[in-house]
C-alpha cells in the first residue's frame, strides 16, 4: 500500500474545466486550483444549489408538518369529545361558525387579530436582538391605561385625541419595557425575569388607578355602583370601523398589517435590522463590529414594549375589547397569546399576519363552544390540542435547523 501522490494530482488535469464552478458537484470532494497552481481539496458542503427548488421543498415540508399535526389534534379531539358523550361534528362546527363561517364573525376575528399581531411584531424585534421579552401582557396593560387616561381624563375629545391616545399607549408600553432594559444593561438583571415579574406589578398599578378617580376611575354618575372601570371613550375618540362584505372591524387592522411589513422590511433591509440580527446571533461579533449591546438591545426592548403598548391602545380605542372602557383584566391574555404568535411565525413579521389571524380565529371560535353543551373542561382540552398542533412544527423545524448548523459549523475533526 504505497501512496502515489501523482494519482491525486493527475485528476484535476482531466476533470477540471476552466469554467467549472463550485458547489454543484455530486462528489463528496470538489477540487480546485489553489493560488499557486497547487491542489487544494476541501470537503464539499451541500449548498442549496438551486434556491427556488430548495425553497419549494422547504415550504412543502412545512405544509406537510402542519397537516400531520393538525390532523392528529383534530383526531384526538374528536375521540375525546365522542368518548365523553359529545358530538365532535358539533364542536368543530361551532369553532368554524364562531371564527369565520358565521355572519360578521370574520370581522370579530380581525378585531382580535390586530392586537395579537402588534404584540407579535414587538416580540419578534426583541427576539431578533437576542432578548426574551415575555412581559407583553403587562406592557399592553400599561399602554392601555396610558391611553385611557389621555382619552378620558383630560376632557378632550375629537379625532386628534385618538392619535394622542395611541402615542400615549406607545410611550406607556415602551416605558414599562424600558424598566427591564435599564435593569438589564446597568445591573445585568436578566430581562426574562424582570419583564415577567413586571406583568404583576402592571396589573396592581392599573388596578390602583382604577380605584382612584384622579387617575382612571370613572366619575360616580353613570357607573354602576362600586364597579371599578374607566369612563367610556367619547364617540368621536374611537378608531373608525369599516364594513366589508358584512364584516365590521376597526381600520387599525390596516395599520397593524402595514407595521408588520414595515418591520419585516426593516429587519432585512436596513442597517438597523442587520445590526439587531448580528447582536441576536453573535453578541461578541456584534461588539467587535460596533454594535453596542446597551444601545441596540435596549432599543429593541423599547420598540418591543412600544408595540405591546400600541396593541393596548388599539384594543381600547378599537371597540373589540371592553367596549371602549378600561376594565380590570382588560388585556385578556392577548399579551401571552401574542408570544405564541411570534413563536409560531418563527420570527418573521410578515408570516405573523396570518398566524395572528389563526390564533384570533381559535379564540373567537371557542366563544361558540359553550353552546354545544359539551363540558367546558373538554372544550378547553380541544383548544389546547389545537394550539399544540400549531406549536409543534416550528419547534421541530427549529431543532432540525440547529442540528444542521452544528453539523456543518463544527469543522474541527
Amino acid at each position, binding site marked *: *500500500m*504505497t*501512496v*502515489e*501522490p*501523482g494519482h*491525486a*494530482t493527475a485528476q484535476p488535469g482531466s476533470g477540471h474545466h476552466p469554467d467549472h464552478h*463550485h*458547489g*454543484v458537484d455530486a462528489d*463528496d*470532494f*470538489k477540487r*480546485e486550483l*489553489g*493560488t*499557486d497552481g*497547487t*491542489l*487544494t*481539496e*476541501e*470537503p*464539499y*458542503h*451541500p*449548498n*442549496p*444549489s438551486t*434556491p427556488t427548488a430548495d425553497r419549494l421543498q422547504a415550504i412543502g415540508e412545512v405544509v406537510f408538518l402542519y397537516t400531520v399535526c393538525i390532523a392528529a389534534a383534530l383526531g384526538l379531539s374528536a375521540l375525546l369529545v365522542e368518548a365523553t358523550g359529545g358530538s365532535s361534528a358539533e364542536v368543530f362546527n361551532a369553532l368554524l361558525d364562531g371564527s369565520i363561517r358565521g355572519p360578521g364573525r370574520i370581522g370579530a376575528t380581525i378585531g382580535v387579530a390586530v392586537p395579537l399581531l402588534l404584540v407579535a411584531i414587538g416580540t419578534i424585534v426583541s427576539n431578533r436582538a437576542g432578548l426574551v421579552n415575555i412581559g407583553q401582557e403587562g406592557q399592553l396593560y400599561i399602554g392601555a391605561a396610558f391611553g385611557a387616561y389621555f382619552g378620558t381624563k383630560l376632557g378632550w375629545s375629537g379625532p386628534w385625541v385618538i392619535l394622542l391616545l395611541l402615542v400615549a399607549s406607545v410611550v406607556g408600553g415602551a416605558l414599562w419595557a424600558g424598566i427591564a432594559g435599564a435593569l438589564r444593561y446597568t445591573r445585568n438583571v436578566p430581562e426574562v425575569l424582570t419583564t415577567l415579574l413586571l406583568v404583576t406589578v402592571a396589573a396592581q398599578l392599573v388596578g390602583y388607578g382604577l380605584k382612584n378617580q384622579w387617575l382612571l376611575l370613572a366619575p360616580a354618575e353613570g357607573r354602576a355602583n362600586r364597579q371599578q372601570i374607566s369612563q367610556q371613550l367619547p364617540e368621536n375618540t374611537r378608531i373608525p370601523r369599516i364594513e366589508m362584505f358584512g364584516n365590521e372591524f376597526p381600520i387599525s387592522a390596516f395599520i397593524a398589517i402595514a407595521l408588520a411589513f414595515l418591520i419585516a422590511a426593516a429587519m432585512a*433591509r*436596513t*442597517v*438597523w435590522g*442587520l445590526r439587531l*440580527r*448580528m447582536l441576536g*446571533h*453573535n453578541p*461578541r*461579533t*456584534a*461588539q*467587535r*463590529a*460596533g*454594535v*453596542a*449591546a446597551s444601545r441596540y438591545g435596549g432599543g429593541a426592548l423599547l420598540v418591543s414594549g412600544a408595540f405591546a403598548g400600541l396593541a393596548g391602545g388599539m384594543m381600547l380605542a378599537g371597540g373589540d375589547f371592553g367596549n371602549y372602557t378600561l376594565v380590570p383584566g382588560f388585556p385578556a391574555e392577548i399579551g401571552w397569546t401574542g408570544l405564541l404568535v411570534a413563536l409560531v411565525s418563527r420570527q418573521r413579521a410578515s408570516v405573523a399576519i396570518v398566524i395572528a389571524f389563526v390564533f384570533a380565529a381559535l379564540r373567537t371560535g371557542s366563544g361558540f363552544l359553550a353552546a354545544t353543551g359539551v363540558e367546558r373542561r373538554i372544550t378547553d382540552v380541544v383548544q389546547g390540542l389545537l394550539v399544540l398542533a400549531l406549536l409543534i412544527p416550528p419547534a421541530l423545524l427549529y431543532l432540525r435547523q440547529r442540528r*444542521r*448548523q452544528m*453539523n*456543518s*459549523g463544527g*469543522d*474541527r*475533526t
Partner: protein
Amino acid sequence: MADLPTSGVHAGAGPSGPAPAGAAVRLDQICKRYGSVQACDNVDLVLQPGRVHGLLGENGAGKSTLMKILIGLVIPDSGAVTINGDRVRLRDPLDAAEHGIGMVHQHFSLVEPLRVWENVALGEDGKLHPSDVRDRIVEISDRYGLDVDPDAVVGELPVGMRQRVEIIKCLRRDPSIIIFDEPTSVLTPAESEQLFETLHQVVVDEGRAVALVSHKLDEILKATDEVTIMRQGRVVDHVLTDSVDASGLAAAMVGRAVSLRSERVALGVVDTDLDGAEVPQTEHESTPEVLRLDQVTLLNRDGRTVLDQLDLTVRAGEIVGVAGVEGNGQRPLADILSSLTDIDEGEIRVAGTKVPTGKAGAMARAGVGVIPEDRHDSGVVLDMSIAENLWLVDTKPVSRGGVLDHRTMNRAAATLIDEFEISCSGPDAPLFSLSGGNQQRVVLARELSNDPKVLVAAQPTRGLDVGAIEYMTDRLRRAAEDGVGVLLISSELEEILDLAHRIIVISDGRIIGEMDRNDADLERIGLMMGGQTV
C-alpha cells in the same frame, strides 16, 4: 529535496495482512459518514502492545473520528473493532474504559474550579475515598515523573500542568491502550520533551499500546514506531517510522510533493537551519508606528493579573510575531484589540490616536482589523449570509440613509468572493454552509477590504488544511508589503519564524523577550516560552 515524492515512503509492515497474534486493538474496515462527507472509509488500524502508533493526517483527514470510534464517542456505520482478540461493540466511553482504552484529549475535559484529585475522581462510581485518590495520584506522579499537587485547584494551574492531570486521570484506570490526541499543541518544547519521555516509559517499560494522533511530522518521526497516514477518510499508507523521512511523510499526507517553505512550516517541519530563511528583511525603523500598547494591564474577575504592563509597538509594513504557549495572555490581548475587553491600566494608540478600550467597535473604526482565534466566537455570524458577513463592520459602502442596497451588496460581495477565492453557491448562502477554510477567507476578505492600519491575526492558520494555510500566510505577507502593520499571535513557532520580522515572546501575561527575526534562535525562544528570561 523531495523531488521524488514517493521516495521516502516504503510499503513497510503491511497492515492488510492478518494481525499478529498479540494485537491490542484491531480496527477492520471501519466506515463512518456524516451527511455527504465520508469521514472514515474502510479504515484498518492495528495497535500493538509496546509500540507507539502514529496517526498522521491533515485536519479533516478522519483521524479524530477514528479515535472517537475507538473511545466509544462515535458509533461506526460499519466495520469491526477487536480488542485483545475479542470482537467488541463500543457504545460509549465507559464501555471503552472497561475494555482498557483511555484517552488524553486535545481539549482538556477538566473542571476548573475543582481540585486535581476531585477532577481525577470525577466519573467514578460508588463511594469516594479522597485519601485513596490522593495516594494514587502521588503514586502515579512519582512513577512517571508527572509532578503535580493533588490539592491544587485546576483553574490555577498552567496549561502544561493541566495536561499532566489529564494524563494521570487516564493512567489511573490503568488502561492497556492509550490514545494521545494532538498532545503537544499546548506545550512548550521542553514540556513536549517530557511528555514523550512519559510516553516512552508507558510503552517500553509497561507494554501498553499507544496511538499518537498528530499533524506534526517532527513529532511523529521522533516518538513513534510505526505510522498510519490518512487522507480524506482513507488510509493512504502504513509504514515503519524508521523507513521514512519528513518529506516522504508530508507527500503522503498532502497527496503531492511538498517543497514550498511555507508548506513545510505548515506541516510543522522546523527548519533548524535558520540562515537559509528567506524572510525579507526590510528596515522598519523609519516607517510610522501604527499600533502602540503602553503599560497595558488587565486583571480578571478574581483580580489576578492576566496581562502585566504590556508594551508593544507595530510599525507600518512590519509583521510582529507574538510567540508563546497558549493561555499566556494571547487571547485577552486579541480581545482587547477587538474591543471585547476593557483594560484596567495603560493606553492603546492606533496611528498615534488614543483609542478607547472596551467600547463597541472603537478598535475596528480606528483601523484595527482582526482575524480572531475562534472565528465562530467573534469573527462571523453563522446564521447570516456571506454578503452580510462581509459588511458586518462597515455598512457605509453598501447602504444609503440607513437602508441596505442589496444589489450593490451582492455585486461587491461577488467581487470579493472572486478575489479571495471563496467557494460558495453565492453571496446569499448562509455562512454556516461554508467549510472552515472558506469561512476564514470571508473574515480575511472583510478585514482586508476595510483598509486596516493594523491587522491582528490570532492563530490564523489553526484548523486549516495545507492549501488554505499557504493562502493565509501569503495574504498576511502581502498585507504587510502594502503597509499594514501585522500583529501575528501564534503558538506555532514555525509560523512565527516563517513570517515575522520581529518576535516577541509572551509568558504569563508578560513580555519576557523581544528579538529581531535574524537574531531568533529556536532554543532561546523555546526557553522563553517556558517562562525563563534568557
